[in-house]
């Protein structure tokens, strides 16, 4: 067998080897393509997960849980009619008692979001309600970040909300923090 004839028509052994090589390449493609896809989308997926409150961690009423370097406990949840709100809507104030652990709140609590959720999965973000203000000594999450609270301090964080009448029966307060996403805390309502 001369070199020339090998070029034109590969002998049986060579053909077998080539077949094997092609098959391996095909299998490698099946592995490498998904891997490439995973690699290129990794950053986007991570960014997305860090920005969304996706997975709820349920907390019993009265229980303190560590979240974003501090201990969070639902202090109070109360609703009522407020002067200038439209009919069939309620004003709700949710307050949390937080024992500061890691005092670097600007890092730990970045993107702090207090919300209300209901049984149907709807979510309400805080609203400004004219004539309804937070009780004395209660600050909202953003002011708490810049309050200069030190380790061991107990601060009260609260927000006001407007919710429709049909949701009031099942609302539960929830808290999301940039350093903990996609996890967020969902608190059980205080017993009646």
């Amino acid at each position, binding site marked *: 067998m001369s070199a020339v004839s090998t070029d034109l028509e590969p002998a049986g052994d060579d053909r077998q080897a080539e077949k094997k090589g092609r098959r391996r390449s095909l299998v490698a493609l099946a592995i490498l393509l998904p891997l490439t896809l995973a690699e290129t989308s990794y950053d986007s997926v991570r960014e997305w997960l860090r920005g969304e409150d996706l997975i709820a961690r349920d907390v019993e009423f009265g229980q303190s849980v560590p979240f974003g370097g501090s201990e969070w406990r639902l202090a109070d949840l109360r609703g009522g009619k407020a002067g200038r709100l439209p009919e069939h809507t309620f004003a709700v104030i949710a307050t949390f008692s937080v024992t500061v652990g890691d005092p670097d709140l600007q890092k730990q609590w970045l993107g702090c979001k207090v919300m209300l959720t209901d049984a149907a999965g*709807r979510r309400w973000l805080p609203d400004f309600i004219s004539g309804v203000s937070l009780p004395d000594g209660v600050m909202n999450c953003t002011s708490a970040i810049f309050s200069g609270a030190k380790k061991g301090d107990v601060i009260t964080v609260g927000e006001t909300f407007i919710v429709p009448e049909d949701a009031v029966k099942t609302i539960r307060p929830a808290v999301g923090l940039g350093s903990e996403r996609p996890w967020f805390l969902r608190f059980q309502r205080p017993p009646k």
Partner: protein
Amino acid sequence: MKIRAIGNLAILAATVALSYGMQVSKPHYAELTAPIPIDGAMHDTVRARSFDVRLDKVVFARTLKTEQFGQERLLTTSGLWAVATTNLAATGTSTTVADGTWQGPTGLRYHQTERLSYRQDMPPHAVDPGLDRSGLFVFEVPPDQIRGASVLIAARQFAPLDAQARISLDALPIGADGQPADVLPEYDMDAAVPSVQGKS
């Protein structure tokens, strides 16, 4: 051998033709990622992905009267002012509805006015689930872009592949000259301001 060469040539030519066809017919990137329109009519609730919107009323006027920093201002236009009153609510999560566009019958688009200073009843509208609120969208349009127009409302101005409510204004009374039947000489933005609650 000859047939094979001709065959190869034919395949090559077909590939070139196909590639060229695909290249010239390729949609622009902005088209590929354009908002997804959801059609509706006036007085109907249009359900977009993150919000519901119902266009209740469109008022046309030659001048807008508004109060800015404690001073009365009259805003004139060489076209017409169109003040659209909508009813808005969020579907699942509190969000904002910020973008309004007037689309004329020939496809010309007029983005909402930015000549008014920040007002509670102007975009961005903060909306909550289950809580209806009214919101205005104000446009400045040429009179010939009114018959057969539609109003496009979206959560954000640049929102690839997000829903966009496309509300046709066929129900508007139009005169014989193709102009709106009713044009006010002056519209007072502060005449009837409903009490609205704002986002903190």
